């Protein structure tokens, strides 16, 4: 080894030691195609909603086949979470929390059905079917009419009845937590 290359080697070695992370040593780059496979989250502003659409009428059929066994025929009376009704009960001694009485964002409904339902086969509903089931559940709560329809533009515009029913913990209020000083 020449003295020059020795010096270079020593410098590179010192740099490696001083560097807090040897970034290239850990993991591998994620490709856009594979990220798209897993990037399923939907935000209240609609970011993350896929193309597609679904009607209340179609959602009623999907619901009967996939959801009613746990949630009841009209989203009421099933063995699992009640999905409809309960509006006006939240301040009572027996509050009934449903999509219609409690959920603040319609986008959450799409996100949750798409990622987690039906319980035995999560992720099995197509985007169109997910819009349709969401539309049907909203119609059960009087939020969409019987001839209603949902897509990526209309879903984020829905104002849920309990949209203003939440008060953030002052220590973790998203509106103030990272305000620039």
């Amino acid at each position, binding site marked *: 080894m020449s003295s020059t290359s020795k010096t270079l080697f020593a410098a590179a070695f010192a740099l490696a030691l001083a560097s807090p992370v040897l970034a290239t040593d850990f993991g591998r780059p994620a490709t856009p195609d594979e990220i798209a496979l897993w990037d399923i989250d939907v935000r209240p502003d609609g970011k993350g909603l896929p193309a597609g659409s679904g009607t209340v009428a179609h959602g009623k059929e999907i619901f009967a086949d996939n959801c009613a066994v746990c949630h009841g025929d009209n989203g009421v009376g099933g063995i699992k979470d009640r999905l409809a009704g309960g509006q006006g009960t939240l301040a009572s001694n027996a*509050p009934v929390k449903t999509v219609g009485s409690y959920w603040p964002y319609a986008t959450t409904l799409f996100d949750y059905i798409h990622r987690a339902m039906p319980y035995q086969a999560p992720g099995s509903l197509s985007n169109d079917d997910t819009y349709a089931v969401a539309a049907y559940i909203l119609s059960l709560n009087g939020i969409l009419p019987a001839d209603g329809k949902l897509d990526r533009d209309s879903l984020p515009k829905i104002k849920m009845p309990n949209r203003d*029913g939440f008060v953030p*913990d002052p220590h*973790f209020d998203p509106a103030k937590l990272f305000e620039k000083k």
Partner: protein
Amino acid sequence: MITQDDDVVDRDGAGKRRLSRRNFIAASTGLAGSLVAGRAAADSLADVPPREVGADLSGRSERSQYVKISRIPEATPGKRNIDPSDAINSKTPLDKLFGSITPSDLHYERSHSGVPDLDPAKHRLLVHGMVKKPLVFNVEDLKAMPSISRTVFIECTGNGWENWKKADPDLTVQNTHGLVSTNEWTGVPLKFIVDLIGKERDSNWMLAEGGDAAGVARSIPLTDEILNEAFIAYGQNGEPLRPAHGFPMRLVMPGFEGNLNIKWLRRLKFGDRPWMTRWETARYTQLQADGKAEQFQLRMDTNSVITSPSGTMVIKPGYQRITGLAWSGHGKITRVEISTDGAKTWQDAQLNSPALPKAQSRFQMDWVWDGKPTKIVSRSTDDKGNLQPDRKSFIAVTGSNALFHYNAQQTWSIDETGRVRNVLD
């Protein structure tokens, strides 16, 4: 401890006599069935079985056949003795544990769609969103990174929910408080991952998502505290995570809601605002008396419970060792007080070492029960000055519909037969 000399020791400085040998004997004498009298009459060394050669050495230590100890799968408040397929959580037997570490197989469990059987060779963690360099990691990548180990409690936000509206007198402390446990977790600081991917400046929130069927996901604010303390764990009490607790990797969020400690972690996405997932809107929010719900109440508050004597136990008059556990998501437990007269007067309990920040701490105090009906209760204070509230003040502030974040003082009543029961206050 019982003091070994005849001098009365004034330990709390308030002139109140603590236990000495002399008044211990005085207290025991004449009280039928006291522990000491019972023991003296019971046995002879001649009755102890002789020594004999034991079982072959084995690849794994099992519990003694004489130790009956297990979690209890349960559902929502009041729904016990259910089919395991209907259970939504499984509670730690706090009344049968010592010290402050929970054995791995008895750490409480809350799973939202069953326990997935994940092959670590095929498991991947995707880190992406508002970052300069989206990356994919496997378990071996994490193990190659600098690691930390930390002993912390994890507590389900539903812990204590049996007692919001009424107290079932037949509940044990496992039923009332079994959704909290303390383990030593080992893994990679979140900050190390954040440095690798190059978080963008306005990217102050992180969506953490599990690889369970439901894909449980929570938005986590990247405060300095969380960036400094959160880590991705692959080790639990010195071994790989158990499947029920997130194998092969999970998030650990010291001091914060159990459900933020995402198990079977498979995705971290960075962004500039919360996602408002089902779990942070419809589920883990606290309905107040006025019908509004508190959201992003992420920290677990100052708490404690007496684990012995506790619900359904039967005690005899005379000497008792009161012991229990205290914990706070704010920091370290600095003081635990116990009342043996229904919260009229309080005495400092002894706090065992080490009392670690955001970990359960064991406390104990000696007591002579005079055989008269009474109530015992504990309250804890942490190093940020937070005092665990009494139930009346707690309910006055929160109402009784919140379902989650119950940290009121737990009262056990003792009747004249020595039977210990769960009561509200």
